[in-house]
């Protein structure tokens, strides 16, 4: 039985093409189609329902919570200031990744984290297993999460809710009154654009959605464009680009590690651009010039911004330098390709100063 978010009726009323994702019946795209939605997010602002994701709150003595996060993730939390958010992963005892997540320190003894929909139950079981007695973990499966993403996001937040968010750093969050109750608004996202995620109760979600959708700069955007947007940014998608068999260092996520002294990995997650026509998708073999397999794509597709075929995947470290000529095997054809730096499209997230 597929589950529904509190905004399900809003999606069907807008004529969304629905599809199953992580056990939820979610909008894949709306009437405008995925290409228009993608371009709209890059030029104006898109509205996403991401209520399928897991939201947790941790309370407790700050030193205990920090110690806890440093136990379950490879990142440092000691310098994370009040209101600041941080991208990290939950690591398994074998060094793989249980999930990736964003942790926000709302204030000194209260932390918020957003988990992937398909991993939230595994994550919470894992977190509870390691939780010290002094820390409580609150989890309601029902909370809603809306995302506003695109260069007009700040304007949309101001004109819809009268919020002045101009002094918020990217990767930060705080509570605002959105007309009924205090809601956590975080300046971050999964598109590479400036944007906000709004955590609200399921009772409030349809009203907040309705208010936002009426803004002339807003278009509803489904999960298909969310995927093409994050692909252009080189952001990994859990279950595809990272999982329990990949380490943060292999995944090119060494920047999240507090201890960066580990051995150089034998394979690395890199960006790939096709040099000839065709589209390469997840699973496509990466080959060298004599046809030997040297890796595989974990994501791939058409970049609506570049009008080119892009992808990411793991490749032998010796072949991972930017500019290395490779081939991607698609339906019997070795398509010439090249290792490129990620993001494929420059990020335009609002970076006033480092928030972590």
């Amino acid at each position, binding site marked *: 039985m597929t589950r529904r978010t509190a905004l399900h009726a809003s999606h069907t009323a807008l004529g969304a*093409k629905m599809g199953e994702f992580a056990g939820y019946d979610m909008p894949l795209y709306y009437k405008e189609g995925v*290409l*228009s939605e993608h371009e709209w997010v890059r030029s104006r602002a898109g509205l996403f329902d991401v209520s399928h994701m897991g939201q947790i709150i941790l309370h407790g003595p700050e030193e205990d919570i920090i110690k806890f996060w440093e136990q379950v993730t490879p990142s440092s939390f000691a310098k994370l200031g009040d209101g600041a958010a941080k991208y990290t992963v939950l690591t398994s005892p074998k060094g793989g990744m249980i999930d990736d997540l964003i942790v926000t320190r709302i204030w000194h003894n209260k932390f918020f984290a957003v988990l992937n929909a398909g991993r939230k139950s595994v994550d919470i079981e894992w977190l509870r297993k390691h939780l010290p007695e002094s820390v409580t973990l609150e989890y309601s499966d029902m909370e809603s999460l809306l995302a506003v993403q695109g260069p007009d996001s700040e304007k949309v937040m101001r004109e819809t809710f009268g919020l002045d968010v101009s002094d918020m750093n990217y990767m930060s969050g705080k509570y605002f009154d959105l007309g009924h109750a205090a809601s956590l608004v975080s300046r971050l996202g999964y598109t590479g654009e400036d944007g906000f995620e709004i955590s609200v109760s399921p009772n409030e979600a349809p009203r907040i959605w309705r208010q936002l959708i009426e803004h002339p700069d807003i278009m509803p955007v489904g999960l*298909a*464009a969310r995927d093409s947007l994050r692909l252009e940014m080189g952001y990994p998608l859990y279950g595809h680009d990272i999982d329990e068999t990949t380490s943060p260092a292999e995944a090119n996520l060494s920047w999240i590690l507090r201890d960066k002294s580990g051995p150089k990995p034998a394979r690395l997650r890199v960006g790939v651009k096709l040099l000839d*026509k065709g589209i390469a998708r997840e699973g496509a073999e990466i080959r060298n010039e004599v046809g030997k397999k040297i890796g595989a794509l974990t994501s791939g597709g*058409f970049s*609506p911004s570049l009008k080119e075929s892009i992808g990411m995947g793991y490749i032998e470290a010796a072949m991972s330098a930017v500019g290395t000529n490779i081939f991607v095997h698609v339906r019997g054809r070795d398509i010439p390709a090249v290792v490129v730096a990620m993001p494929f499209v420059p990020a335009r997230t609002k970076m006033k100063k480092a928030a972590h």
Partner: protein
Amino acid sequence: MAVLKYTNDHECVKIEGDIAWVGITKYAQEALGDLVYVELPSVGKKVKKGEYFAVVESVKTAAEVYSPVDGEVIEANDNMPTDLEMIKSPVGEQGWIAKIKISDPAQLANLMDEAAYKKYLESL
């Protein structure tokens, strides 16, 4: 006079003499969403009924286009990859992906007519 036939896999076929013009139905187009690429077969390619001869790719997914009959590709719609909107026009106009010379006309009996295809869609 040309007749339109349909397959279970949502190919739309115009039969004209011993030539099958093959495209995809509106249902398939809507299921795929915005197209970004069409991979055409080369002319002269021998195809078997049920084997793919072309691939249509949307942002999200790739779909193989299956041959409705045994035969040989005699023409591919070379304009389609640069004008993907063509796929939406009727198969007998610009919406064909390839034309296949039919080697076994008896296979045509297995294809659905429009009424049968409509019924099939309702059953999905």
